[in-house]
């Protein structure tokens, strides 16, 4: 009886789901290779942050990334959520030099950082940051894990699996095949374009008009190496960065930091830790949220069950 309406709405619902999923997958589908999927402690209904890993990630950030990237939305006091003691936080804050003021004499002055200060930025402004990095601006990292589709997986892939020294041969071959195909399609489009232009040219010549002969497009060479990708000067290859050329040289090297907890600092380890840390900086309330969600949904399920029983009871005499 109601099939028509139900079918129509089912189609609508499917569309809603699929179109919503589309933007997220667009990058993987249209512009590059698919991202690998890693396991994260914060995934799932009971997900929580792996404190030790996030702390190590903080260490990597402070030792490596903070030289170029700011972290505007995190204050030293926030580190209490990661399990640092008040004294540890004070000590970390004190390492920063903060410009404060004006004082009673109207002068700005420098002082050691205090827990309520935000993480200091490495450059006074965006222009200075870009200038120091060959024209490319290192973006603020506070929200990075939410500002890229599939954030944590993307960050780990970018830092730990994407650079020339790290990338697997299989991934490389995938990229080469993809690029070869892309160039071939582009070439075919150009060729078609060229043929129409050639016709126009020949017509003009026949009519005695002045015309320049169009040049045929060059046949594309298959992409067989990273050099064949033709990345601009100063860019490093990265399999997961859109366009494959990133203005950030590989930032992580084995033993680039010495972990306070003694964990061996492999690139993979550091990349995982920094991705965990960046997820925390982007979504510091994740644990509160997931914890509250369980309670809310359990309550609602029981409450809705009671309402359903009430509904059945009230409606029992309606035929």
């Amino acid at each position, binding site marked *: 009886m109601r099939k028509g309406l139900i079918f129509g709405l089912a189609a609508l619902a499917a569309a809603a789901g699929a*179109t919503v999923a589309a933007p997220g997958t667009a990058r993987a589908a249209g512009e590059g290779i698919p991202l690998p999927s890693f396991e994260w402690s914060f995934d799932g209904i009971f997900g929580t942050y792996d404190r030790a890993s996030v702390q190590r990630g903080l260490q990597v950030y402070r030792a490596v990334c903070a030289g170029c990237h700011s972290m505007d939305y995190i204050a030293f006091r926030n580190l209490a959520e990661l399990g640092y003691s008040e004294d540890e936080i004070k000590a970390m804050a004190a390492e920063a030099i903060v410009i404060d003021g004006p004082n009673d004499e109207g002068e700005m002055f420098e002082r050691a950082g205090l827990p309520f200060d935000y993480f200091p930025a490495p450059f006074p402004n965006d222009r200075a940051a870009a200038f120091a990095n060959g024209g490319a601006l290192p973006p603020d990292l506070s929200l990075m894990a939410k500002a890229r589709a599939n954030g944590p997986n993307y960050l780990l892939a970018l830092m730990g699996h994407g650079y020339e020294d790290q990338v697997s041969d299989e991934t490389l071959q995938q990229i080469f095949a993809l690029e070869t195909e892309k160039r071939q399609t582009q070439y075919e489009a150009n060729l078609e374009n060229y043929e129409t232009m050639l016709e126009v040219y020949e017509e003009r010549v026949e009519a005695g008009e002045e015309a320049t002969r169009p040049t045929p497009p060059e046949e594309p060479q298959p992409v067989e190496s990273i050099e064949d990708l033709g990345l601009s000067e100063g860019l490093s290859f990265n399999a997961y960065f859109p366009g494959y050329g990133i203005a950030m040289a590989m930032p992580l090297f084995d033993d680039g930091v010495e972990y306070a907890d003694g964990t061996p600092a492999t690139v993979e380890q550091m990349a995982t830790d920094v991705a965990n840390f960046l997820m925390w900086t982007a979504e510091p309330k994740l644990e509160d949220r997931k914890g509250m969600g369980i309670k809310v949904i359990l309550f609602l399920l029981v409450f809705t069950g009671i309402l359903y029983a009430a509904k059945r009871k009230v409606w029992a005499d309606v035929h």
Partner: protein
Amino acid sequence: MSGFQTNNTVIKWIEHRLPIFSFLDHSVGSGYPSPKNLSYFWNFGSLAGITLVIMIVTGVLMAMQYTAHVDHAFESVERIMRDVNYGWLLRYVHMNGAHFFFIVVYIHIFRGLYYGSYKAPRELLWMLGVVILLLMMATAFMGYVLPWGQMSFWGAKVITNLFSAIPFFGDGIVVWLWGGFSVDNPTLNRFFALHYLLPFVIVGVVILHIWALHRFGSNNPIGIDTKGPQDTIPFHPYYTVKDAFGLGAFLVVFSAVVFYLPNYMGHADNYIPANPLSTPAHIVPEWYFLPFYAILRAITFDIGIPFTGVVIIEAKLGGVIAMFGAIAVLFVLPWLDRSPVRSGRFRPIFRLFFVLLAIDVVLLGFAGAKPAEGLWLLIAQVSTAYYFLHFLVVLPLLSVFETPKPLPTSISEPVLKGGGGAMAGAPAKPMEKA
């Protein structure tokens, strides 16, 4: 007002001076008779109303912390997420509430389309609904600009630029909308003012909408009028408890998204602060605008007098007209579908076309998410054509050529399952004019 009885002296005292209790009783109480056969599709009206309240409550609370300035908007939203007590909850509820508002209202609208709820005597009720839809779209669009992320900024730019397609006055109108020569601080400020205002305008129109509803009561899945008390049950307790159960079920799904997938329906780029100098790779509106966005971009050709090269409507303007036309046809729908039978249950051919329309809108949605080129452009164009064909040609023709199944005589005595047979009830007859 008759019917409302009480022995409570306080209530009597108030009721005598301000008859609010009998008013409530007639609106959502035992004094409001409703058809006894309403299905769960009739839950979505009250769900829409409750979602509107949720949006207003969370919105007002966030407005106390939000700063409508291009230099501070993004940051102030992050402060709400991080430093305001339960600010993350407020924001995620408001953000996802908008998505669910549209899901609920779209189901509500398709319910109306299928059961012919737009037909006499409910034309004005339907048209007020379309006004609500338009207001919702304007509100959602301007709300999306407020966090001042990349998609906020570029979405605002693309959509406001549409108005430049209007002949002669277009560019002037755009500057007037912006309050300057680009999307900038004045734009953000006025969008905030309007985003705060419009939901209360919606409340006003919803009151009119419900007022009109109560004039003749709800339509129902069979689509025939109630013939007397045997066909109705009092709104309270029957539909109050049913709506409450529906609300519970809705909140379970809503909470699952708010607490476990809060950013699933959003776009990652909106966590990047707005940057007028860097255009995102793909500017995609929120999903609930996609079908309309597809229609907008489907018109890629100028419309003019054939063979003369005279252009009457440029492609850009044509797209804008088509997009607004897609909603305008809904306004006149009661006069396009002249079939005397309301419910799609008794209209076998209409039902097929209804399913086609639903698929068509879905296709438009997909096309809206893709770059307007190649196959997807073609799909968008065919779907746009069918959308208008459905309302402007198919429905008027069906009203003439379709033979509806026999209607039951009344709600309380629905005739033989399947509707056929010698004993079938009264033949379809035009409904009374009101």
